[in-house]
C-alpha cells in the first residue's frame, strides 16, 4: 500500500533521514518508535509530503507521490493525519471542522457530510459536542474530534503523529481506545507513539528509527523482549 525506497531528507545541513526503505501493507498497524530527534515525525510527514523528501521514492497505491506531476491534494485525501497538537480549526464548530474537507474537497452535499460527521462523532463518543467550539473541549476530546475529522474523508490510511503526547495522562486512554477500535476494524495505520501498551496490543510491526536510520523492525513481542540493536535496547531500557 505504501512503499518507501531509500528516503533521504535534509534540513539545510542536517541529514535527518538517511535512506529509509520499508513497506506498509493494507490493514497493517505500524508503530514508529525511537529516541527523539531520530526522524520519526519527519519520516511520517514525508509520506504525505508535509515535508518534501530530498531524495528517494514514496509509492502510495502504485503512485510515486514524490513525482512533481502528482496531484498531492488528491493523494492527501486518501491519507488521514492526526497531529500532536490536534490543530482543530478554532473558528469552526466541531461538526463544521469535520465537514470542511468532505464538502469542499470531496464535494459531497452538506447534508451527507453532516450525517457522516454525526456518525463519526457517535463513534468517538462526542455527539453531544457537535456544536461546541474547539476551545470548549478538553485535550482528549479535541484529539477525538481530530480523528473524526480525518476519518470523514474516508481515507485509505491513517497517520498519527504522537497523538497522545500533548495530553494529560487521564485523557490518553480515551484517545487510544478510539485508535484501538480503528485498528480492530482493519484500518491501515502508521503511528508515531511511545504508548507501549497500545503498541503491544494493536501494532503488527514496529519500526525503530534512530539517527535517521531504520535500525530494527519486527513484531512488538520480538522487539520488546529480544531487541537486537544496542540503540533499541538502550531506548527500551529508558522508557520501560
Amino acid at each position, binding site marked *: 500500500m505504501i512503499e518507501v525506497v531509500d528516503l533521504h531528507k535534509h534540513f539545510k545541513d542536517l541529514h535527518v533521514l538517511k535512506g529509509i526503505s520499508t513497506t506498509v501493507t493494507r490493514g497493517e498497524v505500524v508503530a514508529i518508535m525511537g529516541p527523539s530527534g531520530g526522524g520519526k515525525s519527519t519520516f511520517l510527514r514525508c509520506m504525505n509530503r508535509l515535508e518534501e523528501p530530498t531524495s528517494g521514492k514514496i509509492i502510495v497505491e502504485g503512485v510515486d507521490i514524490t513525482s512533481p506531476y502528482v496531484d498531492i*491534494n488528491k493523494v492527501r485525501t486518501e491519507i488521514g493525519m492526526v497531529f500532536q497538537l490536534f*490543530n482543530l480549526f478554532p473558528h469552526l464548530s466541531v461538526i463544521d471542522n469535520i465537514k*470542511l*474537507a468532505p464538502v*469542499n*474537497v470531496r464535494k459531497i452535499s452538506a447534508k451527507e457530510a453532516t450525517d457522516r460527521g454525526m456518525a463519526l462523532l457517535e463513534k468517538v463518543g462526542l455527539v453531544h459536542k457537535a456544536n461546541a467550539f474547539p*476551545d470548549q473541549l478538553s485535550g482528549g476530546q479535541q484529539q477525538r474530534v481530530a480523528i473524526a475529522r480525518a476519518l470523514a474523508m474516508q481515507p485509505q490510511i491513517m497517520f498519527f503523529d504522537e497523538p497522545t503526547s500533548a495530553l494529560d495522562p487521564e485523557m490518553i486512554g480515551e484517545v487510544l481506545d478510539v485508535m484501538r477500535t480503528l485498528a480492530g476494524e482493519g484500518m491501515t495505520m502508521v503511528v508515531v507513539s511511545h504508548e507501549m501498551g497500545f503498541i503491544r496490543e494493536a501494532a503488527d510491526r514496529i519500526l525503530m528509527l534512530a539517527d535517521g536510520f531504520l535500525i530494527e523492525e519486527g513484531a512488538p513481542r520480538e522487539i520488546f523482549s529480544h531487541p537486537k540493536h544496542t540503540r533499541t535496547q538502550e531506548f527500551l531500557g529508558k522508557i520501560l
Partner: protein
Amino acid sequence: MGLVVAILRSLGSPTLNLFLIAYLDLFRSIPMIVLMVVIYYALPYVGITLVSVTATIVALSLGYGAYAAESFRSGIESVHYGQVEAARALGLSRWQTMRMVILPQAIRVVIPPLTGNLIAMLKDTAVASVVASPELLKRAREVYVGKANPTSLVMAALMYLAILIPLSRLAGWLELQLKKRQTQQWRSQAQR
C-alpha cells in the same frame, strides 16, 4: 487592495516580494498630501489625467492599501502554522486553506488595527481639498469665503467629530472584545 497584497506576500515568492515590499515602502513613506498632488498635477504630464475625485480615491487606496496590507500580513502570520498543515493534510488546496482556514482567523485579529487605518484615512480625506475634490473641508471653506462666516468651518470640524468619535470608540470596543476572547482561551487552556 491591502488584503490582496498581504495574500500575495504570504505566497513567499522572493521576486514578487521584492516588488511588493518596494510598493509598501514607497507608499508608506510618501505623505498623503504629496501623493495626491503628484497624482492630480503630475500624472497628466505622462498622459494620465484623473478628475479630482478619482485622483483622491486612487491616492487614498494606494497609500492606505499599503498600511492595510501590513495589518493583514501580521494577521495572517498570527495564525499558527499547524492550521495550514491540518488543512493541507485534509487535501485542501493552498487557496482553499487561505480562504477557509487562515483568513477567517486572521480577520478577527486584524479588525482593530484596520479600524484605526479607516479613521486615519477618513481624516486624510481633508487633504483632498488640495486637489479640489469636493470633500467636506473644501465645501466648508467655499461657504466661509462666500458668506464671510466661520460657522461653516466649525460645523465641518463637528461633522468630522460626529463621524470619527463613534468609529474610534468602535475600534476600542473591538480591541477589548478580542482581548477578552484571548484571555478566555488562555484560561480554558490553562485549566486543562
